[in-house]
């Protein structure tokens, strides 16, 4: 797998755009997922994930082949997500939550054309609650928790992605866990 990716990257470095499509295919779900968990909104997540791949392509020459490509790519995606959180524009999206109405999004105000089975609704509600609680975390804990428990990366990889010492990463994960414990204890 890693060799295939390295091969494709050499081709991209030589300027072959089609080789990049394969790289996008391999990583698109992981990157999209990362952005979605960081931002909590599909439109923004798609925007930022797209941007991350374009930046990776443009800056491919600064990628060091001796390192893991995924780590480099996730770093771009994480940084872009954090930037977006910091200068969040007051845009309106259908799946953004309606102010003052817990768990209610604009989707629920648009007539639903499909009836969902009961248990599916329940699991969706739980999913939404968890996502909401992840979004409540301060961005520095959020990125550490998402990388650790959703992308399932090692502490070493997380420290490379966030460009922080492992000790700091640990502290952030510990604090993130404590915050989540507090938020999710009654669920």
């Amino acid at each position: 797998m890693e060799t295939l990716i390295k091969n494709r990257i050499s081709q991209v470095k030589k300027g072959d755009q089609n080789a990049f499509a394969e790289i996008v295919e391999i990583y698109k779900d992981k990157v999209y997922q990362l952005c979605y968990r960081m931002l909590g909104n599909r439109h923004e997540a798609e925007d930022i994930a797209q941007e991350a791949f374009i930046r990776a392509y443009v800056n491919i020459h600064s990628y060091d082949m001796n390192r893991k490509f995924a780590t480099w790519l996730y770093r771009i995606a994480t940084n872009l997500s954090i930037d977006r959180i910091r200068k969040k524009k007051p845009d309106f999206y259908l799946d953004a939550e309606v102010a003052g109405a817990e768990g209610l999004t604009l989707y629920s105000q648009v007539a639903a054309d499909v009836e969902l089975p009961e248990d599916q609704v329940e699991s969706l509600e739980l999913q939404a609650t968890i996502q909401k609680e992840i979004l409540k975390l301060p961005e520095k804990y959020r990125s550490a928790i998402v990388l650790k428990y959703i992308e399932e990366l090692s502490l070493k990889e997380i420290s490379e992605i966030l460009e922080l010492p492992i000790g700091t990463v640990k502290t952030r994960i510990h604090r993130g866990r404590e915050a989540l414990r507090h938020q999710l204890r009654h669920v």
Partner: protein
Amino acid sequence: MSCSTEVIQLMHKYLDEEITSEEESKLREHLNQCEECTQHFHELKKSIAFVQSTSHISAPSDFTMKVMQNLPKEKKVVRITRWLGSHPMITAASLFILLMTGSLFSVWEGNQEFSVSKQPNLVIENNTVIVPEGEVVKGDVLVRNGTLHIEGKVDGDVTVINGERYLAAAGEVSGEIKVIDEMFEWLWFQIKTTTKDALHLFDNDKNEAE
């Protein structure tokens, strides 16, 4: 052992999978007798399980296509190389054209005489061709080894090979004007014309195929 931050630290060490067996037995011992810490530990594990249970979502199906559309243009050389690789027939044809140009060198040798394209209203004096004032010459004008004076109007392209061209104030050319006086330029001109014809041929083929 009191329910201090030390116990909490041990819990996190456990969750990071960095706990030593000694520390682990210490933690277990404490949890056995402290309900509050057991509850705390349970809540920590529960919230991790919750986060891990979030279903994995996939990128939209047109994701890759959108990325590729928004990439900056790639280097021409690579695109051409790849294109040649995937179109062997056309590559062979271009090679053929390249070899043909070799033979064009020899054609050049026998081409030192004055010649001009045939249009009825062109006036020829010695090695000078004149487009008379007030006249309209239809079609492309080609002059080889001679001078061209344009005083009237040419409805088409003008090409002068190995010669000179004078455009009078009243003269007018609707198409392109080209002056070729070097052998290599002439060769280039030949190649371009041949390629253009070849492309027309391909276009016609394509149109027919569609």
